């Protein structure tokens, strides 16, 4: 069965496992939302999931295409707005986890969602921050889910949209309240950040991925522990939930 498991399914399950029961999570589009719903339907039934547009505890139906798609906010318990979710929860300091995607992420966990620079230095704009910078600034810990590619994990991001540990400085030195980037979950591995140097460290590799592959596909030096565990695979039940209930059309989980 292992061979059949798609990397995005490992990512979703790993993301879900980072969440503890009764935590409050702000979720972004795509895999973050899939991971949070998976956690809620397995080990964390008391999880509170928030969407920045003003949704609490959604129970997505069919597969939503974005935050503004009513499939994602189906059967929620609250519909309010930015001021409530991002102001009275995130800025209030009660959000445990912010779950983000990234175009680029660097060794200090800084996130770029604004633009890409081509080799010619020509700039290609993308979506910008939306709630990303707010979440990165204010959530107690930030979990990023993204593809593992050398160009997406550069030494320094082309645009620092959402701060992790800028220049390796601590969050309090940066004047930021939240705990910063805590985990980066990719299709190859899970990264964490050294509590002293605030630079990225390898925490586990997914089954079938070698450390060399990870290093080769990472644009910055990774601290690598001597004993490197394998990432836990999704359980049968997790796979069933992902495939049959949460993303039956395989929009986010690949196919």
């Amino acid at each position, binding site marked *: 069965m292992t061979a059949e498991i798609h990397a995005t399914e490992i990512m979703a399950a790993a993301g879900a496992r980072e969440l503890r029961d009764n935590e409050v999570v702000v979720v972004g589009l795509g895999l973050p939302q899939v991971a949070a719903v998976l956690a809620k339907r397995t080990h964390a039934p008391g999880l509170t999931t928030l969407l920045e547009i003003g949704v609490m505890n959604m129970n997505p139906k069919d597969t939503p295409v974005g935050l503004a798609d009513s499939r994602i906010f189906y059967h929620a318990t609250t519909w309010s707005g930015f001021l409530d979710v*991002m102001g009275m929860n995130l800025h209030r300091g009660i959000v445990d986890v912010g779950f983000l995607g990234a175009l680029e992420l660097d060794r200090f966990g800084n996130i770029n*969602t604004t633009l890409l620079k081509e080799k010619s230095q020509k700039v290609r704009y993308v*979506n910008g921050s939306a*709630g990303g*910078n707010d979440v990165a600034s204010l959530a107690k810990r930030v979990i990023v889910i993204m593809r593992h590619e050398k160009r997406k994990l550069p030494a320094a991001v082309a645009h620092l*949209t959402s701060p992790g540990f800028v220049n390796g400085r601590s969050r309090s030195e940066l004047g930021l309240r939240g705990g910063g980037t805590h985990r980066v979950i990719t299709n190859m591995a899970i990264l964490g950040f050294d509590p002293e140097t605030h630079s990225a460290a390898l925490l586990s590799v997914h089954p079938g991925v070698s450390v060399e592959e990870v290093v080769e596909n990472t644009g910055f030096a990774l601290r690598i522990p001597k004993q490197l565990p394998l990432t836990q695979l999704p359980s049968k039940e997790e796979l069933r939930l992902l495939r049959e209930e949460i993303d039956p059309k395989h929009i986010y989980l690949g196919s």
Partner: protein
Amino acid sequence: MANKTKTVAEIVRTIPDGSHIAMGGFAIARNAIVVVHELIRQQKTNLTLSQGVAGLDVDLLVGAGLVSHLIIGGGSLDRFGPNNCVNRARETGSVVSHDYTSLSICFRYLAGALGLSFMPIKSLLASEVLERLETGTAAEDLRRMKCPFTGEEYLLLRSLTPDVSFVHVQVADREGNCQINGPRWENEEQAKAAKRLIVITEELVPTEYIQRSPERTVIPAHRVEAVIHQPFGAHPTAVYGCYDYDADHLKLYVDHSRNPERFKEYIGTYVLGSGDHWEYLEKVGGLAYLEDLRAERLLGY
């Protein structure tokens, strides 16, 4: 009781070039497309647009060349693609874009809505988002400050008070009392910050309906200058409880918006080629097609 219903053409004629317009949509939901099309037909110029998370509304207006200045928190068309026209305008420099975040835009509107000239915030700090704002023309809207009580460093944001805000709602009476179904993003703060407020409603109801659940009145009549009644007024974006986004039309739009020439074709066919929103609705498929997008009562989409 005042009857404030107006046609979109009447209202848009009162918007001067150079106005600061706040748009009430979010990505592909509740975009005031009926207003956007009319602004393009009447060829307004030099507009400033503000919005939390910009979607099709802003992309259309920027693509059609009406906009010189953006104040936004981000934006996309969700899985359908990026705001190609907005991004192209940023890349070519044809638009000055002040790029904030969802919460900072919301706080700027909140300050405006509360009659405060500034609002403190703890995001944006230590980011290039702030660095770019502070080193550009947005510098005059930002200051650093230490809280006199805690010593904590804050960013102060200047209030935003748009000249006019357009908010698309599901339910309004003729005086302007509005209910919004589903999430409301920054609609309330944006609407109440604006100097003029125009609402576009899917459904006109008698005031007695409003009085049955006054807790649901997010925008009260006395703040509203005019009510535009336009069913399917947000097409091809979604209106919760009324109709779903039109995936086919959004794909067609994104396909055109990747290229300035093809974008012009889109505008020519669907906007300038339609005398009004009813004609546009016929052009995109007409009654039978639109009925297919109607929300299923139980699901809301």
